[in-house]
C-alpha cells in the first residue's frame, strides 16, 4: 500500500504552528495522528476508556509543550513517546491492571514464517532473535527498548514488579547476545 501523506504541510511545520498557539494546526495534527495512536495504544491497554483519556491527555500535552519539541527527528516518534508515557501515568492512577493488557501483547507463541519475515524487514538480524524470545521477555524488550520506557514505567505498563522487569531485561539481553554472536 502506498499512500501519500494527506496534505503537504509537514508534521514539523504543524508543531511549529501549535507552539505559536494555533488550534487549527493542533486539529490537523490530531486528525493526522489520532488514529494510529489509538490503535497502537489499544495494543497496550485493552480498556478503550483509558485509551481515549490517554489520547486526550497526549494532545493537551502537545498543546502545552509543542515548543519543547527539538525540531530534530520524527514528530510521530515524539508523539508516541508522549502517548506511551501518558498511558503509564493513566495506569499508575488505577488499581493493578494486569487484566487490561491485551492478550496479543504477551501472546503469539505460535509464530509464522510471515512473522519472521516482518521482523526481519523491520529489525534486520535482530528480528529472528526477537521472535525466539519467550513472550514475557519480548514484552519487556518491547516496553524498554522499542517504546523507550524506563524500568519503572515498563513495570507499570506490564503490571509486574520493577525487579522482574530488570531480571527479564537482563535475561533477554543475554539471550539476544547469544543469538547474535
Amino acid at each position: 500500500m502506498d499512500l501519500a501523506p494527506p496534505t503537504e504541510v509537514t508534521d514539523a511545520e504543524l508543531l511549529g504552528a501549535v507552539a505559536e498557539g494555533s488550534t487549527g494546526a493542533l486539529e490537523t495534527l490530531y486528525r493526522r495522528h489520532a488514529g494510529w495512536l489509538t490503535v497502537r495504544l489499544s495494543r497496550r491497554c485493552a480498556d478503550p476508556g483509558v485509551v481515549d483519556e490517554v489520547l486526550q491527555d497526549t494532545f493537551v500535552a502537545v498543546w502545552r509543550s509543542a515548543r519543547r519539541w527539538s525540531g530534530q527527528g520524527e514528530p510521530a516518534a515524539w508523539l508516541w513517546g508522549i502517548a506511551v508515557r501518558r498511558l503509564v501515568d493513566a495506569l499508575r492512577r488505577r488499581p493493578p491492571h494486569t487484566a487490561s493488557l491485551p492478550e496479543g501483547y504477551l501472546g503469539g507463541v505460535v509464530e509464522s514464517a510471515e512473522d519472521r519475515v516482518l521482523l526481519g524487514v523491520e529489525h534486520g538480524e535482530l528480528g529472528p532473535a526477537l521472535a525466539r524470545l519467550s513472550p514475557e521477555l519480548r514484552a519487556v524488550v518491547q516496553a524498554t527498548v522499542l517504546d523507550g520506557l524506563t524500568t519503572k514505567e515498563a513495570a507499570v505498563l506490564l503490571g509486574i514488579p520493577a525487579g522482574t522487569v530488570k531480571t527479564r531485561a537482563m535475561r533477554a539481553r543475554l539471550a539476544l547476545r547469544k543469538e547474535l554472536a
Partner: protein
Amino acid sequence: MNAWHLTPDVVRAYAEGRLTAVAALSVDQHVGRCAGCRAAVGATVAPARTDRLWAEIRERVEAPGPTRIERAVRALGLDEGTARLLAATPTLRGAWLTGVVLVLLLAVLAATASPRASAAFLALAPVLPVAGVAYAFGPLGDPGREIAAAAPYAALRLLVVRTAVVVSSTLVPGLLLAPFLPPTSWYAVGWLLPALAMTAIALALAERVAVHLSSVALTLGWLAAVSWSAVGPRDPAVLTAAPVQLLSVAAIAACAAVLVRHHRTPAPLWSPR
C-alpha cells in the same frame, strides 16, 4: 526507508488485535516511521470516536489557562479546584492590594514624621484584614460565593483556606512595612493578634450578623479604642500591651471553637442577607 508497506489485510488484523505479538511488534515499528501506513492504520478507527475526542481536547485547550496566582496556589500542594476558587478571592486583586499597601505606607510615613502619629499605623493595620474578610465573604465583592456555596468541600476547610488567603493578603503588606516604623514601640508586631482576633470575631458572628456589618462595628470599635488611647497623656502602646494580647488570644480560641462547631453541621456557610 524500505519499500515494504503494510497490506490491507495486515492493517485490518493489526487494528483488530489479531496479529501475533511478533508481527504486531514489527507493525508498531514500521508505523512509527511511515506516514502512509500510519494513515492506513488510522483509517480503521471510527471517525465518530476521533471527532468526539477532538471536541473534548479543544475544550480543554481553549479553556483559559491557570493564572499566576492559581499556579502559585497549586505549587503549595492544593488541588486545581481550590486553586481556582482562591484565585477568585477579591483581596488578591491588584486594586485591593495596592490600596492596602498605599494606606499602610501613608501610615508609616506619618509615623516617621511624628511619633504621635504612630497611632495611625496602629489604627489602620489591624482593621485592614477585617475589611478584607468583609469584602471577600460579604455580599459586596465575592464572585466565588456561588461557587463556594456549591463546592464539594468541607465548609470548614474552605473557610480556613479562604480566610488564610484573605488575611495574609492584608497581613503581609503590614508586616513588610512595620519595620519602617520608628523603633520605639511594639506597634510593629503588636497589632497582629488584635487583627486576627477581630477577623475571627467577624467570621464567628457571621451566622447571626452579616459579615460586613459586624466588620464595620469592629472597625469602629478599634478606631475608637485607638483614638481614646492616643488623646491626652495616654500612650497608644497600651493597645499592644500584654492584657490586650492575651484577650486577643482568648477571643481567637473562642471564635475558632464556634466556627469549628458551626461548620461541622451542614448549615449554609455564609451570612443571611
